[in-house]
């Protein structure tokens, strides 16, 4: 476990893994979306609006998976004080927020033609909107710690506390009667005809690879930023020392 927390080893792996994930992700996503656009028959009730599933379900999954990644990385950061865990959590926040926003936007565009409403305040939609605001809060806390030289522990605790929202998002549609339908996909079970299912699963894999690549990219950027700052600080100290000696 500690082996992976070594920034030098991480950078060696991330250097080739980042472009690999991004390229595979873009290829798989493009293939899945093209397959969907070419092969989707109109759904029997919602007709062509069914295409939107390709850009709604994968971002929804990554918005939630992104926060679980933040929660787990925060746990590792708090318990083992791994330097990379906090960096991973911070790196996952922005793509997680972006995917949550995409999910909300495409969901709204889907709701208008299918339900007859852009938005309703049921618990599924409301808790997903809350997730977006939690991401904003987390980014503000982590950013403040970074700027002011704090420990980032407050952000890590916030990341763990915010995980309370994830089961609410997931189980709201199972336990409550909501405008949003129940999950179509669960472990080994699908209520989606195979003609829609395979392109959807492909898009979920593709979007997830892109997510992973972006997280690695951002982790490398944060590490590079820290190194540059440390170097500047050393230079400044050396300059002060030289000034005092003259």
């Amino acid at each position: 476990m500690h082996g992976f927390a070594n920034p030098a080893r991480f950078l060696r792996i991330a250097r080739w893994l980042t472009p690999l994930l991004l390229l595979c992700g873009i290829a798989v996503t493009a293939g899945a979306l093209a397959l969907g656009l070419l092969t989707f028959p109109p759904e029997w009730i919602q007709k062509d609006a069914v295409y939107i599933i390709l850009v709604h379900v994968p971002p929804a999954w990554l918005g939630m998976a992104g926060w679980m990644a933040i929660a787990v990385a925060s746990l590792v950061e708090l318990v083992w004080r791994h330097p990379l865990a906090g960096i991973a959590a911070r790196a996952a926040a922005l793509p997680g927020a972006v995917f949550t926003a995409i999910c909300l936007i495409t969901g709204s565009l889907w709701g208008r033609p299918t339900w007859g409403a852009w938005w309703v305040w049921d618990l599924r939609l409301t808790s997903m909107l809350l997730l977006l605001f939690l991401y904003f809060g987390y980014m503000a806390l982590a950013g403040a710690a970074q700027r002011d030289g704090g420990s980032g522990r407050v952000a890590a605790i916030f990341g763990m506390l915010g995980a309370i929202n994830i089961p609410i998002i997931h189980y709201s549609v199972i336990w409550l009667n909501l405008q949003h339908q129940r999950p179509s996909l669960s472990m080994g079970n699908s209520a989606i005809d195979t003609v829609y299912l395979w392109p959807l699963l492909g898009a979920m894999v593709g979007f997830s690879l892109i997510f992973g690549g972006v997280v690695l990219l951002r982790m490398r950027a944060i590490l590079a930023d820290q190194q540059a700052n440390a170097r500047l600080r050393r230079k400044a100290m050396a300059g002060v020392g030289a000034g005092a000696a003259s």
Partner: protein
Amino acid sequence: MAAIKPKHQRLVLALIALAAILAAGALATWALRNQASYFYVPSEIVANPPDLDRAVRLGGMVEMGSIEMEADGVTIRFVVGDGTARVPVRFKGLAPSLFVEGSGVVAEGKLAKDGTFIADNLLARHDENYVPRELQDMTEHQKDAVISETVGAK
């Protein structure tokens, strides 16, 4: 007694905290399931009718063959059912395009004295099943076979 390593102490504390907040989230949703539901199903409305002047939402399936247009051309009547109970609904206005028989609907409005639900807004509701239109052209038997294959054991 041997001292617990601070690392392990932090781990136990953090895991307890994580388990507690996930359980709290699940419990909160579970406890709120009556208040937090977006609509009542017909059997709830029938068993426990809301006050006549209270705005509520009624959700369920539009019964097959139940949609009727009244003589004025803008008022429609239909029946919402959930398998055990059925509630007649009257709605004046433009229904969403996906409002069809055999599909889900959420009606906002009030219950009238005679047990009819007077809706002032309708939302269509999609269920979790995604079925291609080709199935519509099959015989009932073929359709059932394909759908049960897709939906699987629920």
